[in-house]
């Protein structure tokens, strides 16, 4: 079972529907998380949402408690949240991407995806990862083709993955394939 932790977003249920193509999914608000469901889940997904990771201390606790024990996936805010817990700074960017379709590229040969491959994806983010960023086992694997902003990370060892873009958006081409590959690792 996949447990989606919702951060009051208006895209979370698109994520739920996408994941539900592959497994049973449960979804609760971040302040109504059920201990029982978390224990049952094989994968925990941190949803997109407004604001910044520091606004959601409950999510930080969950991440730290289950890191390495369960597969974890972060989308948009969730992506930033995982990196934030790994000591990254999440900062405002000059150019803001809301409802924007852009090309991103796989830039790392340690990725599950083929290096050099380009994806067309939908983006909704005001904030971004401040670089340089380094943390054990974490690799930045995709970047925006134009701005080079970090768009995905993978930690294969502890099975932690994150997307700054929205694989569930109608603006993302082949988003289901991206999710399928991560879920099947």
């Amino acid at each position, binding site marked *: 079972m996949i447990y989606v932790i919702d951060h009051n977003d*208006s895209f979370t249920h698109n994520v739920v*529907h996408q994941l539900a193509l592959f497994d049973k999914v449960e979804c609760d608000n971040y302040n109504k998380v059920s201990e029982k469901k978390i224990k049952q889940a094989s994968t925990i997904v941190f949803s997109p*949402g407004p604001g*910044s990771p520091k606004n959601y201390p409950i999510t930080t606790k969950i991440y730290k408690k289950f890191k390495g024990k369960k597969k974890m996936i972060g989308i948009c805010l969730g992506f930033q949240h995982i990196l934030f817990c790994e000591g990254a700074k999440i900062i*405002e960017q000059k150019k803001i991407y809301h*409802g924007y379709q852009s090309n991103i590229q796989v830039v790392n040969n340690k990725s599950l995806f083929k290096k050099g491959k380009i994806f067309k994806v939908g983006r909704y983010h*005001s904030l971004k990862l401040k670089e340089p960023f380094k943390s054990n086992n974490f690799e930045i694997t995709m970047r925006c083709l134009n701005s080079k902003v970090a768009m995905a990370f993978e930690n294969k060892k502890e099975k932690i993955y994150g997307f700054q873009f929205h694989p569930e958006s*109608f603006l993302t081409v082949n988003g289901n394939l991206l999710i399928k590959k991560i879920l099947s690792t």
Partner: protein
Amino acid sequence: MNKLNQLAEIHQSGKPYIIYKSQKGFNLFTNFSQKIILSKKNIKSFLNKKNRYKSKNTDLFIGFFGYELLNNLIDIKVPKQKNFNFPKGIFYKPEKKIKLSNSLRYNKKSYESGNFKININRKNYRKIFNRFKKKIKSGETYQIKICTKYKTRSKIDPLDFFSRLSSTNLAPEAFMIKDNNYSIISCSPENLITKTGSNISTKPIAGTVKKTNNLNKLKALNYFRKNIKETKEHNMIVDMERNDLSRICKVGSVKLSKQKIVEEYKDLFHYVSLISGKLKKNIKNLDIIKAMMPGGSVIGCPKISTLNLLNNQEKENRNIYTGSFGYIKFNGDMRFNIIIRSILNYKNISEISVASGVVVDSNANHEFNENFIKAKALIDLF
């Protein structure tokens, strides 16, 4: 007796009635046997109540949910605001339905009104605009719609206004309510819910351009496609409406049936999408209303944090504005619009609310003027 005479007679008799746009003309509902004034306390029982379906064309409740009530329903607080105690929502049970054609000829009656006054001037609008722009930069909202209100003292004949409005702008979700102590006149273009059996759809509008001699439908489409700001706003609304439908629909059933097409109306072009899905089993009316309302395209995105930002900013109650008008049939089918482009007349005051969106690349002056243009189409009726 011909139908227009019937309309005139019902109007002159003084009894309450409602007109709602249908595909071919208008439907008139009257002879109300029940009038339910909604509040925080009774809305859930109203929506959960089972009514026996007798396959009559009046087996339905028709009316509106105000903005505050829709916030209450999804547990979002609206702080104490200036208001004139207009009901939060009202539904009627009609016993008579009459079909009318598109032309509602009605002899112009005299009316009185003062000059419209705006509740937020340009300087204050800019202040609010800049505050919200900061919230976009920090990621608390991605798009937010600032509401401004125009008000005047008035004494009007709603049917006179509605027939004149319909003759220049035959909007697909137009409606009029005439009751003893209030009236609403609306040329809403936007459908929020169409539900037939287990099929449900929503048809958000994001992007409007005025028709000119040089601008045909194809050129309008090109205009929207090239306009990055309009495109991004539209994309956001599409993903948000997909999300709201996904709350209540079967996995894999939510589809973008029409993606970013142009619809042509008498004076303008709209940039619209149609999103549809199949309802999960055991979904109740209440679940549908809570998932879909208030309609996202007139609020901003993401819905909850944006509603909170708006409610903490706005000093005056929105009343009907960005609420929903429509009907729920006894068999569960429903149709609701989003209440925009409307005049509320209550206690001899006419009130028109308008809003336009703040996204990261919008401009305060431009949006303020845009609001005025939207209001002017209605103010010009006075």
